[in-house]
C-alpha cells in the first residue's frame, strides 16, 4: 500500500501513464498529452543540451585528432607542437573563464586533456624514438591528472581511467610480455581488481559528501567494468580458452564482495542485479565445464550426447531460475 500512498502525493512518470492506458482509463488520443504532462521538462532539456554538447565536442576533438594523424608534411614539427599547445592553453583558459563547474567548462577541460594526448602523439611522430606505446599513455594519464582533479567531473575521470587502463595493459604486454606469470587473462583480472579499488574510493568519497561523484551512473559504470573485466578471463578458463584456474580465485571473492556491498552495505538493486547476472553466466559456464569434464560430449555416441545436452539444458534452466529467485529476494530486501 506504500506505493499507492506515494502515488497520491508524489510525482508519477511514463510507466504509470502506460498502465493507465492499458487499464483503459486513458483514451489513446490523450496519451501523448498525459505523457507530456508527467514528463520532467527541465531534466529533458538538460539531457538534450548535454547530448548535443557531447556530440559536438566529441566530433571537433576527433577532427583535431584526424588532422594530426594525417601528418601534414609541409607543416614543421614546431608549428604542430605550437598549434596543439595553444589549443591546450586556450581550452584551459576558456574553461576557467566559463567556469569549471558548468557543463561547457568541463567539456573544455576534457578537450584540453584529449589535446595533451594529441601533443604527445605529434611529438612521437616528429621524433621517432621507437619507445613503447605504453610510455605515451602513461605520460598522458599523468599529465591529464591535473585537469581531471581540477574539473571535478565524473566524465573527465572516466576518460582518465580509460587512458590509465590502456597504459597499464600496454605496459604489461610490452614490458612483461615475456614473463611466464603474466598472461592476457591475468592482466584483465588485475584491471578488474583495480576497478574494485576505484569502486571503494568512489563510495568513500560519496559518503564524505563528494557530490559530483554521486550520480548513480558512476557506480554502475565502475561495477560493470569490474564485473566484465573479471568475467572474460574466468569464462575463458571455464570454456577451455586457457588453463589458468587461479583466475577463479580472484573472480569468486570479487563478485561476492560486490554482491555483499550492494545487497547489504549500500543497497542498490541495479548494481546487485548486474553482478548477479555476470555470476549466473559464470555459473552456467562452470556447470558446462563440469559436465564436459566428467561425462564428456561426442556426437558419435547418441545416448551420451543427448544425456549431456539434457544435463546442460537442465543446468542452464536451474541457474536462470536461481537467478530469478535471488533477484526477487534482493528486490524485496531492498524495497
Amino acid at each position, binding site marked *: 500500500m506504500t506505493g499507492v500512498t506515494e502515488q*497520491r502525493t508524489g510525482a*508519477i512518470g511514463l510507466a504509470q501513464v502506460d498502465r493507465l492506458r492499458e487499464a483503459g482509463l486513458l483514451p489513446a488520443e490523450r*496519451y501523448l498529452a498525459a505523457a507530456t504532462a508527467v514528463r520532467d521538462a527541465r531534466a529533458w532539456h538538460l539531457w538534450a543540451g548535454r547530448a548535443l554538447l557531447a556530440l559536438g565536442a566529441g566530433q571537433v576533438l576527433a577532427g583535431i585528432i584526424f588532422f594530426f594523424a594525417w601528418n601534414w608534411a609541409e607543416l614543421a614539427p614546431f608549428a604542430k607542437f605550437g598549434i596543439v599547445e595553444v589549443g591546450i592553453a586556450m581550452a584551459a583558459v576558456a574553461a576557467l573563464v566559463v567556469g569549471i563547474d558548468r557543463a561547457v567548462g568541463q567539456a573544455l577541460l576534457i578537450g584540453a586533456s584529449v589535446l595533451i594526448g594529441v601533443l604527445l602523439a605529434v611529438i612521437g611522430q616528429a621524433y621517432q624514438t621507437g619507445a613503447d606505446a605504453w610510455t605515451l599513455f602513461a605520460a598522458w594519464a599523468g599529465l591529464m591528472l591535473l585537469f581531471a582533479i581540477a574539473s571535478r567531473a565524473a566524465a573527465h575521470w572516466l576518460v582518465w581511467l580509460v587512458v590509465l587502463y590502456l597504459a597499464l595493459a600496454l605496459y604489461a604486454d610490452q614490458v612483461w610480455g615475456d614473463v611466464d606469470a603474466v598472461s592476457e587473462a591475468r592482466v584483465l583480472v588485475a584491471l578488474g581488481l583495480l576497478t574494485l579499488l576505484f569502486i571503494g574510493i568512489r563510495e568513500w568519497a560519496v559518503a564524505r559528501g563528494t557530490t559530483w561523484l554521486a550520480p548513480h551512473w558512476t557506480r554502475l559504470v565502475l561495477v560493470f567494468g569490474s564485473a566484465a573485466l573479471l568475467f572474460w578471463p574466468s569464462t575463458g578458463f571455464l570454456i577451455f580458452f586457457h588453463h589458468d584456474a587461479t583466475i577463479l580465485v580472484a573472480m569468486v571473492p570479487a563478485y561476492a564482495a560486490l554482491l555483499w556491498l550492494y545487497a547489504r552495505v549500500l543497497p542498490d538493486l541495479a548494481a546487485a542485479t548486474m553482478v548477479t547476472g555476470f555470476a549466473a553466466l559464470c555459473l552456467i559456464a562452470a556447470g558446462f565445464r563440469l559436465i564436459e569434464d566428467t561425462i564428456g560430449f561426442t556426437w558419435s555416441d547418441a545416448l551420451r*550426447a543427448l544425456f549431456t545436452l539434457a544435463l546442460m539444458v537442465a543446468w542452464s534452466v536451474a541457474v536462470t531460475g536461481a537467478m530469478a529467485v535471488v533477484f526477487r529476494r534482493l528486490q524485496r530486501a531492498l524495497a
Partner: protein
Amino acid sequence: MMALDELCRAFGIDPEAAHRALAAKTDAAPWYAEALLGAGGWFSAIAIIVFVLAFCGLVLGIDEPGIGAAVAGLALFAFGGAWRRRQVEGLFVRHFAIAIAAAGAALVAAGIGVETESLWAAAAVAAAIAAAGTVAIRDPLLQFLLVALALVLAILGLELDAGRGAIDVIALAAPVGLWLYLHPPALNVRPAATLLLLALPLAATVLEPPALSWTTERGWFARAVLLLCFAALIVLRPRAGAAPVSATTIVAAVLAALVALLLPAGAAGALLLMMLAYTLGHRPFAAIGAALAVWFIWQFYYELDLDLLAKSILLAAVGAGCLALYALLARRGATA
C-alpha cells in the same frame, strides 16, 4: 511533472480506478531485471532448440528441420503459451514458459522455412504466430521475442531479394512504430512498436554502407520517411501541451535535417529514437538512441572512403554545427 490525483483531475480519470490500476503491479521487476531474466529465458530457449534438433538428428534420423520440427514446435508453443496464460506468479516459471513458447515458434518457422525453401514463408508463419501470441497470451516479453523473430526473418528475406535497397523498405516500419507509441491501442503492443522503431537502425548496421549520402543512390526514400517522422513529432508536441515552437524544437528540426541529409539513414533512425525519448520522457530510448548514434558516427567516419584531412574537416565542421546549436539552446536558457 504531476501527481496522480492531479493527472486524474486534468484528464477526467476516476482516481480510485487509477489507484487500483497502479497498485496491481507494484511488485513488478524493473526493466533491467526483466531484460536480464529475459536473456536467461532466451538462453534456455536456445538450449531447448539445440536439444530438440539433436534429438531429431540422433534418434529420429532427421538431419534438417521440416514439417516434423514445425509440428513439434507448434506443440511447444501451445504448451508454453498455455502455461504462461495461467498467470504464473514465479518470475522464473514465467520466463521458462516464455522460453518454451519462443523456442516452439522458432522451430515452427525453421520447419516451414526449410520445407518450402523460402525465408518469406518462414517470416509469414513467424508473423502469424507473433500476432496470435500477442492477442492470446498477452505477455510483453513473449511478444518481443516473437515479433523479433518475424522481423529478423523478414529483413533477411528483404536482404536476399532487394540487397542494399532493403533499407528503403525497412524504413516503413519506423512510422508504424512511432504511431503505436504516440497513439497506443489498449492492447499493450509496446514491445512490437519498440522493435519496429529499432528495425531500421539495427538493420542499417548490416545493410547500409557507411558513405556520404550524396554518393549513394540507396536510402533516400528511407531518409524521406524519417524526415516525415521528425516533422510529425515536431507538429504533434505543441498539440499535446508542450511549448509551441521553442529553441529546442528549432535545434531538433535543424539537427534532424542535417543528420538525414548527411549521414546514413540508420543514423537518422537513431536520432528518431532520441527525439521520441525526449518527447515522451522515455529513458531506455534515450540510452539506446545515444548508443546507436555514437556507433553510427564512429562507423561512418571509420569506414568513409576519404583521406584523413577530408575526414578531419568534415568532423570539425559537423561538431562545430552541433556546438552552435548547443549555444543557441544555452542562449534560450534551455541548458545549465
